[in-house]
C-alpha cells in the first residue's frame, strides 16, 4: 500500500510532527515517526475529514471539530490517489477544483462568455425588468411625488440649489385653459405652471405637472407650437418616463455593484441617489417616444403638425445663442427635425379651432 509523507499538527500545540499517510478503504492511517520508528498511530474517519479547497504544491486536510488536527502533504500524487481510492467522496470543492484543472483556452472562453452575459443582461434584460417595476407604482404615489417636487421648485421657501422659481399666476391660469381644450389622452390630472425665468425651457414632473418657463413661451408664435411642446412634455408624464428613468438608473447601479461584489459600491449608490431623484434627463430613446406622441396629439386634435417642426427650429435657435443645461439634454439632433418633417402633412386643411385660438391670443398678449 502506497504511503505519502506528511506533516502533522495536533491542534493543541504548533509542534510539527513528521509522518506518513496510508489511505485505507474506510479510514486514513497516520503514523507519526522519528528516525524511521513509528511513535504514534492516529486514525481519521473519512466522514470527518474536512476538504481542502485547493490543489497546488501542497494540500491541507483538517479533521474533527475546533481545534482541528491538520495534515499537510506536498506530494502531488495524493490528489490522483484520493480520486481513485474514494471516487464518491469530495475532498476538494468541486466547483473550484474543476476550474483549477481546466486549460487556458476554456478559462479564456469562459471569461469572454461572462463579459457577454454581463453586457447582455445590462443592455437588454435589465431595462424591461426595471420598467415593469416602474409600471407597478400606483398613480397616487406619482402624483404625491410630483406635487412635492413642484412645491420645492415653485415659490418654495427652502431653495434647493438654483432650481427655484416664482409662479406667473395669470399665465398659468390661461395655460391650464389651453390644456383643457386639447385631448392629450392622459389618465393624469394635468396642471401647467408657468414660471418667471430667462431660461428657454420646460419640463414635466411625474403625476401630471408641467412647468413652462415664460421665456420659452415668449418665443412661441402659434398655438400649434405650444400644443406640440405640451404634447411632448405630457408624453413624458403619460409614459411614466421619470419613474422608468429612476428605476433604470438604480437597477443599473445595483446590478453593477452586485456582480462586481462591491458592497461599498452599493452604499455609494444609496447615498448618491438619495438626492438625485430629481433627475429629469431622459435618454434620446425616451425623447423620441415623446416626440412621436406630440405628433399624434396634434393629429388627433386636428392641429397642424408643422407646430412641432417650428418648435424645434425655435429651440435650435435658442440653444445656439444660450446653451442651457436642461436643453442640452434634449439634443436637437437632425434626426428629430427629420422626424418632424416626415410627419408634416401640408396639403391638409385644418379646422379653425376658435376657442383654442382665443386662449392662445390672450396668452400672447399677457406673456
Amino acid at each position, binding site marked *: 500500500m502506497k504511503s505519502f509523507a506528511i506533516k502533522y499538527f495536533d491542534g493543541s500545540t504548533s509542534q*510539527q510532527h513528521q509522518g506518513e499517510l496510508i489511505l485505507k478503504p474506510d479510514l486514513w492511517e497516520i503514523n507519526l515517526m522519528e528516525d524511521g520508528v513509528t511513535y504514534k498511530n492516529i486514525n481519521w474517519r473519512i466522514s470527518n475529514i474536512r476538504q481542502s479547497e485547493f490543489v497546488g504544491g501542497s494540500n491541507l486536510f*483538517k479533521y474533527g471539530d475546533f*481545534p482541528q488536527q491538520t495534515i499537510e502533504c506536498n506530494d502531488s500524487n495524493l490528489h490522483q490517489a484520493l480520486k481513485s481510492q474514494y471516487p464518491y467522496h469530495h475532498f476538494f470543492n468541486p466547483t*473550484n477544483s474543476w476550474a483549477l484543472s481546466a486549460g487556458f483556452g476554456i478559462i479564456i472562453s469562459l471569461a469572454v462568455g461572462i463579459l457577454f452575459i454581463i453586457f447582455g443582461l445590462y443592455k437588454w434584460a435589465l431595462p424591461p425588468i426595471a420598467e415593469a417595476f416602474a409600471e407597478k407604482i400606483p398613480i397616487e404615489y406619482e402624483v404625491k411625488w410630483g406635487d412635492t417636487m413642484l412645491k420645492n421648485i415653485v415659490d418654495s421657501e427652502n431653495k434647493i440649489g438654483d432650481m427655484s422659481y416664482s409662479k406667473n399666476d395669470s399665465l398659468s391660469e390661461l395655460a391650464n385653459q389651453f390644456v383643457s381644450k386639447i385631448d392629450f389622452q392622459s389618465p393624469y390630472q394635468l396642471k401647467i405652471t408657468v414660471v418667471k425665468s430667462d431660461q428657454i425651457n420646460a419640463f414635466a414632473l411625474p403625476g401630471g405637472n408641467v412647468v413652462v418657463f415664460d421665456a420659452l413661451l415668449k418665443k412661441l408664435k402659434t398655438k400649434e407650437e405650444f400644443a406640440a411642446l405640451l404634447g411632448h412634455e405630457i408624453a413624458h408624464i403619460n409614459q411614466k418616463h421619470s419613474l422608468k428613468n429612476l428605476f433604470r438608473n438604480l437597477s443599473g447601479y445595483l446590478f453593477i455593484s452586485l456582480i462586481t*461584489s462591491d458592497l*461599498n459600491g452599493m452604499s455609494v449608490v444609496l447615498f448618491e441617489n438619495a438626492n438625485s431623484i430629481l433627475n429629469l434627463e431622459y435618454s434620446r430613446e425616451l425623447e423620441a417616444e415623446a416626440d412621436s406622441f406630440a405628433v399624434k396629439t396634434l393629429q388627433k386634435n386636428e392641429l397642424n403638425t408643422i407646430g412641432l417642426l417650428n418648435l424645434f427650429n425655435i429651440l435650435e435657435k435658442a440653444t445656439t445663442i444660450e446653451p442651457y443645461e436642461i436643453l442640452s439634454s434634449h439634443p436637437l439632433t437632425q434626426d428629430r427635425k427629420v422626424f418632424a418633417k416626415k410627419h408634416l402633412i401640408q396639403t391638409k386643411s385644418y379646422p379653425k379651432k376658435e376657442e383654442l385660438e382665443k386662449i392662445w391670443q390672450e396668452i400672447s398678449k399677457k406673456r
Partner: protein
Amino acid sequence: MENTQPSFRQFSFTGEGMELFKIYIVNWLLTILTLGMYYPWAKATLLKYNYHHTFFDGSPFQFHGTGLEIFKGFIKIFIYLILVFSMILGLQLYGNQRYMSIAIFLIYLVTFVLIPFAIHGSVRYRSSRSSWRGIHFGYRGQLNELVKLYLLGILLTIFTFGIYGAWFINDLRKYIISHGRFGNIKFDYTGEGTAYFWLNFKGFFLTLITFGIYGFWWAMDQFNFFVENVYAEQNGKTLPIRSSAKGSDYLVLMLVNILLTVFTIGLALPWVVVRTMRFFMQNIWVQGDFEADSLVQTEEAYKDATGDDFADFLDLNIV
C-alpha cells in the same frame, strides 16, 4: 552569552496569477448567475486561497471561515441596506427636503456609530478563523472599550480638524493589536501619534512639492511605521517585526500594476493581487528567537461574520 547574529524569519506569498484568475472566473460566473448571492462564498474562497498561499517559516496560514458564515452576516447587512433605502425613497415620495436632510444626516450618524461594532466583529471573526500550524489567532478586545475609544477619538479628530487623527489611529491600533493573541503569543504596538503626525506632515508636503511622486515613499513610510511598531511576545521574549519595504520598489510595483490593469481592461486583476501580496509579504520579517514548535492553542472559536461583512460594506481597511 553567545554572540550570535539575530535571526530573521520571513513571510512569503506563493499564489500564482493564473490560478487566482481561474478562481476569479468561477467567482464572477457564479456571482452573476445568482445575482450577487454567491458573493459570501466567493469571498471565502478568495480568503482561503490567499491564506493558504501565505507562508511563515515554511508553514502556510489557513482560513477556516465558510461561505455560509459570511452569508449569514451578509443577509443582515442586506436587510439594513433595504430598510435604509426604502426609507430614503419613501421620504422622497412624501416628505419635504428638510426631513430628507435630517434623515440622511441620521443615516450617516447611525452608520458612523456602527463602525466600531464592525471593526470589533471583523477583527474577532477574522482572527478566530485564521490559523497557522493548527494554532488559531484570537482577539480579546472588549466591544464597549473599543466603542468608547472610537467615539471619543472621532469627536476629537473632528474638533481638531483632523489633526488628532494621527493620535487616534495609533490608539486604535494599539488597542486592537495589544488584544490580539496567537496561541500563547501576545502582541503589542508602540506607535505614537506625535511621530506619526510628523511622518505624515513631511509626507504631505514632499508629495505636494514633487507632484505626487513622493507619495510612494510616503505610503511606505506609513507601512513601515505600522509594521515596525508591532512586537510579538513569546514566553517572555520579545520578537520585533521588521519591514524592508522601500518607496522605490513600491513605485515600480504600482507602475506595473497600473499598466497591467489599463491594458487588460481590469482582467489582470488576479496578477495585480499576486504581485502586491508578494511585495508586502516578502518585506515583513520577524526578528529574534521565535520558537515555532512551542505555540499552545488558547483561543475559542468565533463564527459570527456580521461585523466582517459590515466592514466590507463600509469599505473599512482594518488590517
